[in-house]
């Protein structure tokens, strides 16, 4: 009955985006929206610069890289969390940085999870699938719950 909501991937590296797409392919035909940088991500998510009437998009899950051109992942996260309607959307940081400062900062800004991209392809695929499955289940549980 409800329209399946998209999973948003904010990723500047084309290959990484390709890998993610490939890994998530076949997960019940869920649409994966790939946004290349912070600016694009914010305009898509908050509706700024989006086609008239399309409004803002509240995706099911946001996979967010940190190192992004134009506007950094952290800034995107900050704006998402201060934006009504997006403040509860799960955001998973997906990055190659394992710097403790980044981890701490992102959680402080409201990230729901922080995932370091494993180099091994098999690990990466499994991890991405697990994340998407986990948050989908979470969303369903919350929607299905009374009250």
């Amino acid at each position, binding site marked *: 009955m409800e329209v399946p909501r998209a999973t948003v991937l904010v990723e500047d590296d084309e290959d990484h985006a390709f890998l993610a797409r490939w890994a998530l392919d076949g997960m019940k035909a869920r649409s994966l929206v790939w946004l290349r940088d912070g600016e694009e991500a914010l305009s898509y998510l908050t509706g700024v610069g989006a086609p008239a009437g399309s409004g803002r998009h509240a995706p099911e899950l946001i996979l967010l890289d940190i190192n992004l051109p134009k506007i950094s992942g952290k800034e995107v996260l900050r704006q998402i969390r201060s934006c009504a309607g997006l403040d509860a959307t799960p955001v998973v940081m997906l990055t190659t940085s394992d710097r403790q400062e980044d981890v701490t900062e992102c959680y402080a800004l409201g990230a729901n999870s922080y995932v370091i991209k494993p180099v091994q392809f098999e690990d*990466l695929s499994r991890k991405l699938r697990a994340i998407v499955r986990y948050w989908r289940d979470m969303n369903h549980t919350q929607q299905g719950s009374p009250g």
Partner: protein
Amino acid sequence: MQTQPESPLRRRNGFAQLIAARPASLRERWEAALAPSTAALSPDERAAVRQIISHFSQACVGYLEHRSEEILASAAAWLGPSGMIRRFTLAQLQEFVGAFHQAAWPLVALHANGDVSALLEAAEAITDCSLMAIRAVACEHQRRILNEANETAEFGFTLAEVTRSVTSSLNLDEVLQLVCEEGARLTAVEGTLVRLLEEDGTLACRAVWGSGLEATLGSMVFADDTQSLCSRAVQSRRVQTATTTRELPLDPNPMALVPGRACLAVPIIAKGEVLGAMLFLGVQNHGPFDLVRDAELVLTAELLVGQIALAIYNARLHAQVRSLVYALDHIGECVLVVDSEGRIIYANQAVMRALDHSPSELVGQSLLVLASEAAEEEATRRIIRESFMETREGEVIWRHRSGAPVPFHVVSTPMGGEGTRSSQVVILARDITEEKRRQEEEKAHRTQLQCKNQELEAFVYTVSHDLRSPLVSLHGLTGMLRIEAGDALNESARHLLDRLDANVLRMERLIGDLLQFSRVGRHLQTEVVALDEVMAEIAIDWQERLDARGIRLDVTPSLPVVYADRTSLRQVMDNLIGNAAKFMGDNPAPRIEVGGFLEGDEAHLYVRDNGIGIAPEYHERVFVIFQRLHTDTDVEGTGVGLAIVRKVIESLGGKVWIESQVGEGCTVHFTLPVREKGG
């Protein structure tokens, strides 16, 4: 009964006046002493005696009968049993008294030790109606009296003059010269000289007065030279006398002197120490030295010599003060003394060097003139105020003459030491401009270094991160290729993909290690760490792995407690044990030993193995990051383990080095502080 209104006692220069000045109590004493003697006289005679006493002198103490026994008995009674009495015959006495109605002869008590202790200074005739001498009254005084009253006489004035010179002049030779001149005048001798004992035991002539004696100045004699009167005085510590002759060479050469005259050498003694002697040569208008007649000379001479002793004492004090002042002027610290009003009463030359204020212009001014701003004045004032009881320390800023502020570290102490309530404060001020500058420099340097470190860290991070990103893609793409191509790949193509993947993973490990290395030594949380505890944990961690390879791990009990970061220390021990296990080779009884001991302020620790060892030429290289001595296939690892060990140990303030030979195992030594640096 007649008396002599103008008694020669009075006219006699000095002594009679001295005696006349004695207080009443003394007179009473004399009268009491006289009483039994006068009892034998007729009332008239008694009255006459009293009249003499009251008229001339309060010190007339005796009378003379015609019999010689009496004078001796009286004298003995006066001078005491220890005195050796200079005996006068009655005839001698009568000759004087009868002829001149007066006498000017002193009686001297000469003790066995040579001291002249008392005098019967003069006698007076008591005449009958026909002016025949029937009695003589002698007067006595003691040297003590003379000493006490010397300023009342003309002699005293001169002596006072000498004394004043001695106490006001700090030039010893000047004083000695004055004593020689005045001494010669006072004692009416032809010449005087002073010899002082030198360090080498000789007596150097430091001052002379008298014609023909000038050449003697600067000459020296040996202290044990019996020919020299001065030497004899110094040796015996007593007054020595002689008579000038043409034959017997004296010191100095007496040729210039009139022969047959008295000479006198008086030792200069201060606080029991013989410092030299003063020589009085050729008493004028006298014959050979006569102890009785020249007693006054001896006394005068001794008083003068006493002044010399005082002058030498002063000169020594002054020399000490001068050395102290010299020392104070040549130390780097500023030394100031201020009084209870905060006025500067002393400033050394360092003040001049530091602030360009000359000590002479500062003396008398308030210390506050050095502080030009109100806040600094208060700091200075506080230091003074609080230092009259106990030592205070602090920093103040004073002004250079040019107006430039100069920071000082100041220690102020009450004069006389801690705990004494003093009216003066000694201030030691150290110019800390340099120190401050160095501190600033160090701080700037540290900040700069920190910036550099941050930059480097950011660089390493970026590189690591940016290098990792393509690896994710690479591995991902080969993974996808394997799946997409599937069966289409032949054996050889799969092998190539395997090699590609292996290299990607190796690259990933290198980046990981580089990152780890870049993070080591940051955010150290140093504390006291018991190595025993750390090693117990490590032993448990490694137990399984070591057991699997049959390696024995021995940890010496009671390892030192060190001051370190626990996590980093664990990493060090972990890396070292890992390294030891890795390079064990094929030793049939592999063993790793961990031990340590205290060495001064440091703990010396070691990890020893009996593995393959390292050739000495590589002992340094192994600590460099990514330096590996073995080909990839031999052992795993990127070569970062020892580099991390060194970085951690050095960050903690220790050293690390290797002791090893190929085939003889390897020992990695390292040191760590056992307590906080500076704490």
